[in-house]
Every structure is written in structure tokens, then in C-alpha cells.
């Protein structure tokens, strides 16, 4: 059971708040990765406020759904979600992220913050660690718990990912739900222009996975898709699941959207104020269309 189980409108609000928290933390740190943090905010909010089953009082238990952020540079959104569910204080996020002596390291670190299940940042590692957790759950005979792994399309240029993708299907680990933040942007430009990773759906299917696609910036579509994925997982067909979530880098902030310079660009106070205004308009217009 998700401890919040929020409805779509409430999740939408959480995703707006997640974006604002991420951007303010990055602005205060004068360091971080705003673009990806914004593109995954809807996925994070749907996972933490609706889809994943966990208990706040026993968050470190093995017998729960697990989460690994493989594209660790988008950690601001992860910390924002952890602050929203109450595991860390918002002040800690806004005042200490990426600063000296902080628990909130620039990339996820399982020792600094015990809620984090895998240290990531160097791309192409977290997916495999998540797959290892999934194998461990089966070895521990823990059933109907899933390992949610968030990766990105750019990360799929790392060859190491594919080692573990084929391992997962070989070992019939159908308790994996991998989500790919597919925003077509990496540091130097568009993924399609540098070394395309498409067609991801076909690639995953050929590797023995069940592949789904969703609009990763649409709460309704994400909830609908995860529902489908979970129903499919209950069939225990031995095939790991992947959701290719089509997103827009910088989503919700008009001047950042689809601009690869915002992968890791710092925000000035003026940038932040403009971004906040843009996000408020985005939330208002999205709610109006409900």
C-alpha cells in the first residue's frame, strides 16, 4: 500500500512542488542539474505518492517496493520527493544540498543518507544494482514487491547497462519495473544527434523484456501505464518490465524546456524567479484543463 495514495490532482500539485524544491535547492547550491530534475518530477511524484508500496515507519525494510535512481545527477528531484514524504526536512534540502558536511550529496550516496538504496552518479551502474536487488528479493522469497529503477535515455549509451538488461531477462526477474526518462537530451546536445539509443522499445523487447510507453509528463497517463505494468507483472511471465517515459527536459519552465544547456546550468536569482513564475502558470493551466 502506498502511504499517501493521492488522487491525480493532488499528485499534480506534488509534482509542481517537487520542481520548485529542486530548483530552489539547485539555486541555493549554485550547482546541480535542473533540466533532468524537472523532466522526472512527474514520474517521482507518481511513484512516491501513488504507485510504490512502502511504509514510512519502516522505510528501510527489505519487504517493500524498492527504488533506485540510476541517473543520479537528477537527485534534486529525489531529495525533493524524500522531503515531501517527510524523510528529510525541507530546510535541510534547501540549505545543505551539495554543501559541506551535508547528508545530501551531489549524487545519491547510501551511506550519507540511509534511505538511498544505491550510490549512483557514474552512469550505467544503478540499473544493475536495482536488478541485483530484484534478484535478492527472489532469493529471499519476497513476492509481489517490485524494484523501481529510474534511468534515462542518455544513460543507455553506457554499454554496461546492456550487460545487466540481458542478465535480468535471463534470470526471469519479472519484479523489475524500469522507467526510462526519455527526454532525448544529454550534456552535449540531443541524444538522437550524438549516438541515438532508439528504438528503445524494440531493443528491450528483443532483450526479453515487456516494454510500455507513456507520456512521462502526464500524471494520468503515468498512473494508467503503471497500473497496466503492475497487472502484467502479476502474470509472473518471467519478463522484466520497462516503461519508456517520453518527457521534456526542463518541463514546466518555459525557458528551460528542451534546451540542453539546462542539463547542468546554474540558476541565478533572476532565473529562479522567472522559473517559479513559469511553474505557477504551468500548474494553474494544467489544473484548469482538468
Amino acid at each position, binding site marked *: 500500500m502506498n502511504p499517501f495514495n493521492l488522487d491525480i490532482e493532488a499528485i499534480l500539485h506534488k509534482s509542481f512542488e517537487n520542481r520548485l524544491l529542486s530548483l530552489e535547492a539547485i539555486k541555493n547550491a549554485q550547482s546541480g542539474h535542473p533540466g533532468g530534475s524537472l523532466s522526472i518530477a512527474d514520474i517521482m511524484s507518481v511513484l512516491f505518492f501513488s504507485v510504490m508500496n512502502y511504509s514510512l515507519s519502516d522505510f528501510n525494510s527489505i519487504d517493500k517496493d524498492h527504488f533506485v535512481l540510476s541517473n543520479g545527477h537528477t537527485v534534486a528531484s529525489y531529495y525533493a520527493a524524500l522531503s515531501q514524504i517527510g524523510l528529510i526536512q525541507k530546510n535541510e534540502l534547501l540549505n545543505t544540498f551539495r554543501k559541506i558536511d551535508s547528508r545530501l550529496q551531489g549524487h545519491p550516496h*547510501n551511506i550519507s543518507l540511509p534511505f538511498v538504496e544505491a550510490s549512483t552518479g557514474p552512469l550505467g551502474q544503478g540499473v544493475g544494482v536495482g536488478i541485483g536487488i530484484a534478484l535478492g528479493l527472489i532469493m529471499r522469497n519476497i513476492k509481489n514487491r517490485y524494484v523501481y529503477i529510474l534511468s534515462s535515455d542518455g544513460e543507455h549509451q553506457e554499454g554496461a547497462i546492456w550487460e545487466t538488461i540481458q*542478465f535480468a531477462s535471463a534470470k526471469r526477474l519479472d519484479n523489475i519495473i524500469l522507467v526510462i526518462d526519455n527526454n532525448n537530451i544529454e550534456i552535449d546536445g540531443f541524444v538522437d544527434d550524438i549516438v541515438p539509443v532508439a528504438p528503445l522499445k524494440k531493443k528491450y523487447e528483443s532483450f526479453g523484456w515487456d516494454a510500455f510507453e507513456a507520456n512521462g509528463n502526464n500524471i494520468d497517463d503515468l498512473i494508467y501505464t503503471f497500473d497496466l505494468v503492475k497487472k502484467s507483472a502479476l502474470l509472473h511471465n518471467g519478463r522484466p518490465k520497462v516503461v519508456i517515459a517520453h518527457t521534456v527536459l526542463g518541463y514546466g519552465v518555459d525557458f528551460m524546456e528542451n534546451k540542453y544547456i539546462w542539463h547542468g546550468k546554474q540558476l541565478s536569482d533572476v532565473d529562479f524567479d522567472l522559473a517559479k513564475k513559469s511553474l505557477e502558470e504551468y500548474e494553474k493551466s494544467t489544473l484548469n484543463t482538468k
Partner: protein
Amino acid sequence: MSNNNSAEEYIATRNAIGDELYVQMKLNSNIFALSADLIDSTKLTKINDEFSDRVINVGVAETSLVQIASGLEQVGFIPVITSFAAFSPGRNWDFIRTSVCYSNRNIKIFSTHVGLGVGEDGATHQAMEDIAIMRVIPNLVVLNPCDYYEAKNAIKYALSIDSPVYIRFTRQPVKSYCFNNIEFTKSIEIKRNNSIDKNVKISILSTGCMLETAEYLYENIQKNNSRFTCSSLNNFGSIKPIDEKKILELKHESDIFITLEDTQLFGGFGSSVLEVICESHIPVIRIGMEDSFGESGDYLSLFAKYRLDNEGVLKRVLDKLKSQLIS
């Protein structure tokens, strides 16, 4: 310590994996062995036969080896990852750094086929940089046992501590010196000569498979040059943490150190010793691979060619002792 076994007993230290890891897996059902398609070569055959549900073969995929182990450890298992040292840590070093050491995971990295002893497979498979690249990683214990028995003790020790540990094992047979089933220690004094002559006193510090050659040096330096006396022969089974106390004690009683290893001198065991004594003025002769790759050949010929056999090492040492730097 004198030899507990027949003076002629030679066993590959990798055999200790098949024997001691088997015992430990029998005792602790949380221990998993992971292989990257090298079950027989890393001596997991019997373990795989008996505990097949706890042996994970990831295929020819050394980064996967580490990632899967890291996930297994997250849910409380104790993974032991096995491969050739040229590939693990040779290929998966960044994964070991982040997903094992930075994460401070209770994962053991057992790597066979170290150094020139690999022989005919040639330079690609002869890991001689592994000590240098592993000892720089925080949280990691780095062990280099000298023989089969010390390797068994090292495995037992590694599995008794909650820490990432790297152990390197030889493919080739090496002479036995140590006792079975005693507590692993960072260093062992193998021989000592308390003579009170006025000669220049040499302490020999060896690690891994070089102990037999170190013993040969110990017995032959004085015979070749009467100005020198070897005062002690020491085996360092632990590269990190290194036995600083022992090194400083040896420094106090010695005029010269000789270090021996089957790995690159840059960043290797001898460099570790230098780091400990860098503020003193004791000359150190470091013996190891001199910044070159190996090649194909039987391992005895290789050790001879690269002057890591008894005669080659003795000559290198005697030359250095004669040099102005030392005298």
C-alpha cells in the same frame, strides 16, 4: 615461522577459494559466489555443484558482476565476486569504486591469475597493476597472500569482517610457508637472524608469491657479499591496511630494506612501504615489474626473463647494493 608442510609442497593459492570459500559457504547461507564465466578457473566447481542456488553466473560481463553483487548486498547477502584480476578489477574498477567501496558494501572481490604467473596467456591476462589501482580506494582492504594456507586464512578473515575486501590469488603453484587455520595477520616474520656482526643489516619485505625468492635472497646475499647480513625475512599478506608498526620496527633495526612483489613498482607494495617510511632515511631497494607488460611463455621462463626469479632478483639486489647510492 618455519614451514609447516613438506618443504617441497607447492599449491596454487587460487585453490584456497575452492576449499575455504566452500567451508565458509557451508557455514553461512548468506554467502553468494558470483562468476563471470570462469567457474572452473576460479575454483568454484565444487561450490557450484553443491550450492548451485548460491552461485550466480553473470556471463562474460564483469561490470554486471559488481552491479548484481551490490544489489544482493543491499538485501543482506554477502556476495563474493570472482574473476581474473585483469578483468576484475581491471575492467570494472569504476563499478567497484562506486557500487562497492563508496557504498561501503560487505562484498568480497576474489581475483585469480595475478602477475606473470599467468604465463602463456600473455600480457593481456597478467594483472600487474591491480595493487596500485585497488589500494587507492577508500574503505577497501587489499590482501595478497603468499601461499595456499595464508590464502585460506585471508578468505576466512575477509568473510569475518563487515567491509569490502580484495584478495589476489595466483594461478601458478607457490611454495607453502604458513599454517592452516590460524588468524590472518597483516604481516608475518618468516625468518630472523639476530647476529651482532657489524655488517650492513638488510630487512626483506615480501608480498604474495615472491616469498620463495625473498627466502632465496635472505640466504644468499651474505654469501655473495660479506658486507651485508639479512636480519629478517617478512611476509606482508595485507597491502592495505599495511603493517606500519612492523615496518617502523624493521626500519629501527635495519640499514636497508628490500621489497619484493610480482606487480608494477609504480604504486605497488614497495610504494606502500615507501609511503610509511618517507620521513626516514633508510634506503629501499624495490623489486617488482619495472614499468613493462609481460608476454606469453611458461611462468618460470617469464619470471626469469623479467628478473623476478631467484637469480635475477639476487643480481638486481647485489647490483644495487654495490651502487654508490647504497654504499
